């Protein structure tokens, strides 16, 4: 009885029910307003207008069911603004609109985790198909859908992979705030992302989509109705990303505690600031270009249709104006996590703080000036290629700052090889290879060979998986005890690390050779002489998949079965979030702390950290 009563109300279940209801309402309306006249092929499932309406009304219903309508409705009726805080400790708050930034952080971690595993499963299926040079498991259409879902899910969901779980949870604690600037929007960004992920998954009911994550036109216009899932997915991700970035910027700019000047801000927060700037400015371009694609598919406009006056170049340009900042949205939080964790495990101050900040902001600026390096052989602006070559290679200067600051922080330190530290050290190795292989792609003559081949695919897996996913795990092992209140098993963590590190390099290292030897991306068949390398890569990829299962086992068993309470400050960090008890109380700080130093004063004579009254943890020395 109590269980049944708890299920009633504004929560995920209501959201899903209203979401499905909204979908069918939109579907019904769509078929009514278009009528049979637009169904040229008499295939009712291929009615894009009704599918778009279904998805849009479905999202609206989902959000209303979660309770996002309550507050605007109350304000419309004249109630004063208020912040409805859910202070209950029950599990139910994770399944609804919750304005506690710590709950949203955990929601993000689990929600993104689910889609990360779906995306990873797609990768396993892709590698299964590539065990043989001919098409043997999946027909080409299904294979392309797998490729597209893997790419789109990873690129879309993981844009918030660090900022969603970790920045939402940690940034307010780091800057001494009790909440984010816009708590309802914070929750909205998460649920929009979940709606998006669900919608992308439903593409399999509408025939999948053949375009990969880039969705190039005019193939996008030509594709069947599964393409609509891609468009709605990425548009929702764009909206979520933009709002998340705005929220982060507003929080860090306006809600820092007294004494936390820009020069004392933890480097992780600087990474969040630079990522958020990119998110806020890049995501609208994505939403715009997808809206144009949607109009081309439904209202028969021709933004991208060459034979009707449009241009596919327009799509390529706009997509990469978003798409290149996008890859730095994925990479920059990784830089910031490495620089944040190294001082803790070297017990030295961050070396060259200002240079590190300059590096992050320099990448932020330069990432806007490089997008046409994705189009070196496309025939667009061929005389501008030397400029894009230069601007692309210039990015290695601010990226080099990150390397220098990280490496010099290690120098003469007291290194402790904890699991998060191992993942950070692996970042140096992976990003070194990723960065150096990027030089081949930025150099036009060399790019003629490597463009669109497995070489570029290996390159961006080294930078994104080696750069982002490794630091994502570093962050889980580092902040996990604070976020969950329980310790993760260190031995399993080390097994996970070594298996993942070796399998990762064994998977993507040979793919550089595969690309150089002439295998284009996203093919279902390949030449027979590349069979051995492809089988090697597939088997390594399966081992990589197993390493993820080890992590999953560790995470679940530590949190559900072992349940060893984590100490307040297991790493001996000086950062503000570790001065609070684990798990963090709902209001974070009873008294807002006052900062008089940055969190990197290792080895320096330091005043005791301004510990909030509610905290039991002392300073470490």
């Amino acid at each position: 009885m109590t269980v049944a009563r708890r299920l009633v109300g504004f929560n995920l279940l209501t959201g899903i029910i209203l979401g499905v209801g909204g979908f069918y309402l939109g579907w019904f309306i769509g078929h009514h307003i278009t009528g049979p006249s637009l169904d040229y092929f008499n295939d009712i499932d291929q009615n894009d207008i009704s599918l778009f309406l279904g998805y849009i009304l479905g999202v609206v219903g989902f959000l209303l069911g979660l309770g996002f309508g309550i507050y605007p409705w109350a304000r419309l009726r004249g109630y004063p603004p208020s912040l409805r805080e859910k202070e209950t400790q029950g599990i139910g708050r994770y399944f609804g609109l919750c304005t506690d930034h710590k709950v949203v952080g955990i929601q993000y971690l689990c929600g993104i985790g689910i889609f990360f595993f779906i995306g990873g499963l797609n990768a396993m299926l892709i590698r299964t198909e590539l065990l043989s040079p001919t098409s043997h498991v999946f027909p080409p259409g299904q294979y392309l859908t797998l490729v597209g879902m893997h790419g789109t899910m990873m690129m879309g969901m993981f844009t918030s992979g660090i900022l969603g779980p970790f920045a939402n949870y940690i940034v307010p604690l780091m800057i001494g705030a009790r909440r984010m600037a816009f708590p309802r929007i914070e929750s909205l960004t998460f649920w929009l992302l979940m709606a998006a992920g669900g919608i992308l998954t439903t593409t399999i009911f509408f025939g999948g989509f053949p375009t990969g994550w880039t969705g190039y036109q005019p193939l996008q216009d030509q594709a069947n109705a599964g393409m609509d899932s891609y468009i709605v997915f990425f548009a929702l991700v764009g909206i979520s990303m933009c709002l998340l970035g705005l929220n982060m910027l507003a929080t860090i700019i306006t809600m820092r505690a007294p004494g936390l000047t820009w020069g004392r801000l933890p480097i992780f927060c600087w990474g969040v600031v630079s990522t958020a700037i990119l998110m806020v400015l890049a995501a609208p371009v994505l939403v715009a270009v997808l809206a144009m694609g949607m109009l081309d598919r439904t209202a028969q406009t021709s933004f991208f249709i060459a034979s009707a006056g449009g241009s596919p170049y327009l799509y390529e340009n706009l997509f990469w104006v978003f798409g290149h900042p996008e890859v730095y949205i994925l990479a920059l939080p990784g830089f910031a996590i490495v620089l944040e964790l190294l001082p803790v495990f070297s017990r030295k101050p961050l070396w060259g703080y200002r240079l590190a900040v300059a590096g992050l902001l320099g990448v932020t600026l330069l990432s806007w000036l490089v997008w046409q390096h994705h189009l070196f052989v496309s025939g667009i602006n061929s005389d501008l290629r030397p400029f894009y070559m230069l601007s692309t290679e210039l990015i290695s200067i601010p990226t080099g700052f990150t390397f220098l600051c990280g490496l010099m922080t290690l120098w003469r330190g007291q290194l402790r090889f904890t699991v998060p530290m191992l993942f950070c050290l692996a970042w140096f190795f992976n990003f070194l290879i990723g960065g150096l292989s990027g030089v081949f792609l930025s150099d036009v003559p060399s790019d003629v060979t490597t463009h669109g081949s497995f070489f570029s695919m290996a390159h961006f897996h080294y930078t994104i998986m080696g750069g982002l996913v490794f630091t994502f795990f570093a962050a889980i092992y580092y902040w996990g005890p604070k976020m969950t209140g329980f310790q993760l098993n260190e031995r399993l963590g080390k097994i996970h690390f070594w298996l993942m590190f070796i399998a990762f390099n064994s998977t993507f290292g040979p793919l550089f050779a595969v690309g150089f030897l002439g295998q284009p991306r996203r093919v279902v068949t390949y030449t027979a002489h590349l069979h051995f390398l492809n089988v090697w890569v597939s088997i390594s990829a399966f081992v990589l998949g197993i390493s993820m299962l080890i992590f999953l086992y560790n995470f679940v068993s530590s949190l559900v079965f072992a349940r060893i309470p984590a100490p307040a400050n297991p790493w001996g960090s000086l950062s503000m979030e570790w001065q609070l008890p684990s798990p963090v109380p709902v209001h974070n700080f009873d008294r807002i702390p006052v900062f008089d130093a940055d969190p990197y004063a290792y080895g320096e004579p330091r005043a005791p950290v301004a510990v909030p009254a509610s905290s039991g943890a002392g300073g470490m020395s």
Partner: protein
Amino acid sequence: MRDAPHGKRFLITFAVLSVIATPLVAIFVGREFPPGNATAQAHEQVFDNSWLVAIMTPPAVFVLVFLAYVLTAFRNRTGDLVDGPPVRGDARIQTWWMVVTGAIVLFLAGFGSYELVQSGSGGGQGPTAAFEPAGYTKAMDVQVIAQQWEFTYRYPTYGGVEVPHLVLPANTLVRLHVTSLDAIHSFWAYQLGVKADANPGSDNIAYVQTKGPLTFDIHCAELCGLWHGYMFDTGQVVDARAFASWIKRQRSYFAPVNRYLPAYATTYLPDPQRRAG
């Protein structure tokens, strides 16, 4: 331990290793790079790749030696929380780092641009090629028409005959006009060192200077839909006499169907074909 000359030791190890490794990499790794030596453009790419890999060797050695040194020399062996020296930066090291990385980057960009400007390096350059090789006015025109999911080729100087397989004469400068009839494709002739996107409604020019006879692989390198993975072909470079007799045979063989082709043009736009609803 604290007073050991770590900096000197590291710098000497780095210097020795990179002095040994760089020429070895340049000589033994560099020349192994694809796509080989079959055309002037492919040769340029191999040359570029071998320079790049040589230039990258010292930075790679730097980071790897640094990591190896740090991980062995500076481990916390006691297990206690001991603080390291509170060094917060060093203006000299920062300046040197900026100068050196800046110099490497500017050199790379200058080197790549110089190589590109010479001949266009086999990449697609759009309807008005910005960087043309010497003697381009006498280049032979060949059109590559991509469609879902095959390439066909037209020879405008031979009556606009359209053939299903690409054959090029040896020792000739060829101007490839790449275009598409539907989605975006990419014409990748691996051994020729040519890659040019095929865009509907636009002409994408790539130059290639063939050398001796050769069989080469052609792939589509841009995702173009369902049968993208099957969009490959084999082409040939043959000597001038063989080419002359081949093209003559093709003209008579395809004459009955070529009558119905549209006149040769740089692009072909089919009537707007829109999918339904």
